[in-house]
């Protein structure tokens, strides 16, 4: 198939969520996975070289065409998205869940030193966090973990893609900036 790259590009344009290689393979049955991967890499490179308004990103185990951050202001004038920014407290809670998952609420609150029921509910509503089940300890507390949506929003390929938390020694500089 010579036009495989074009077919994949057209799929990427229409797809509602990040397309995995497997998903593309299901559509392009006769193509090899390697061919698909190569085509994706080529497309990504083309967009990089072209330096246009968008690029190809690897998120949540798939590929998705996304606009370059440089142009976010213009896009916001066009579509006026609902504000998605999370509060500092919500981000901290989300970070704890992301790094320590699966985790129960008590352990989250232990790290933050504050209760976080309201924040958890908000994160659940925004589908950043989900309930995995219940822990088999007294009280059977809910177990929380992050969602695919979380990966999509934070442009992460998978959970291993999370940046390694810094050691405290490296941290002192950056942390002092945040305190102001």
């Amino acid at each position, binding site marked *: 198939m010579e036009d495989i790259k074009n077919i994949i590009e057209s799929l990427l344009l229409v797809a509602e969520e990040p397309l995995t290689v497997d998903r593309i393979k299901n559509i392009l049955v006769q193509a090899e996975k390697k061919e698909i991967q190569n085509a994706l890499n080529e497309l990504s490179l083309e967009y990089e070289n072209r330096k246009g308004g968008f690029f190809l990103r690897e998120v949540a185990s798939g590929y998705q065409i996304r*606009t370059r951050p440089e142009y976010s202001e213009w896009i916001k004038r066009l579509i006026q998205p609902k504000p998605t920014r999370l509060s500092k407290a919500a*981000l901290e809670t989300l970070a704890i869940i992301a790094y320590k998952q699966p985790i129960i609420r008590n352990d989250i609150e232990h790290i933050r030193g504050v209760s976080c029921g309201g924040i958890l509910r908000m994160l659940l509503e925004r589908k950043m966090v989900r309930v995995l089940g219940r822990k088999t300890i007294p009280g059977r507390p809910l177990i929380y973990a992050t969602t695919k949506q979380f990966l999509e929003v934070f*442009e992460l390929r998978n959970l291993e893609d999370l940046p390694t938390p810094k050691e405290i020694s490296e941290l002192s500089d950056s942390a002092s900036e945040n305190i102001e």
Partner: protein
Amino acid sequence: MQEDIYKVQINDIFEGPMDLLVHLIKKHEVDIYDIPIALITEQYLEYLQWMTAINIDVAGDFILMASTLTKIKSRMLLPVHEEENDDEDPRMEIVKPLEEYLQMKSAANELASRNLLGEDTFVRNLNQKSLTIDQDDEIIAVGLFELIDAFQKILEKISVHRGVDIITADTVSVRDRIVQIVDILETRESVTFNELFSSDTDKSEVVVTFLAILEMVRLSLINIVQNRQTGIIRLFYL
């Protein structure tokens, strides 16, 4: 001093005791592995007083931390005997959580600095996506009434099957029922409303199951969808 009070009012409403502690440590530029516990405790208590003075609700968490700090401070004052030398530094009680908290704070900052979808970067169908979320909500809202209808039907069925309620000793709690439903959904992804109510259940079990379903919707554990044609209500695992 006066300056400090001013600062509290302007930009630092501490979210929790850890935030206050981090603030004090940064302010005095002390090493978290060698905290001058007397100074920090004193400052911490002062801040608590200021916070009460300017009507910030000082929650129990703040008091708890204050007592921990005071405890560490008093333990530091106790003479250390030679043979107890290998005892842990009492300050470790506060250093370990601080370490972890600082690490998570920096992780949160790092997350925030990424190209966020819907903020820095956009996908072509973002509008459609937010639309579908609204639609989902609508399905749940409409489904709730249908849910009650379906619930009534099941109750009717039971009263036909058996006239007397048999008292059973071990009834299932709503919590247990949620776990059971999650177990089912984990293997099958979706289940019909009727399947969850086996024909031989008594009234209390039906009520428990119904409450469990409502609770799961509230926790965004499941999505409930009804087929317009068949009227079959299905639960989907999110």
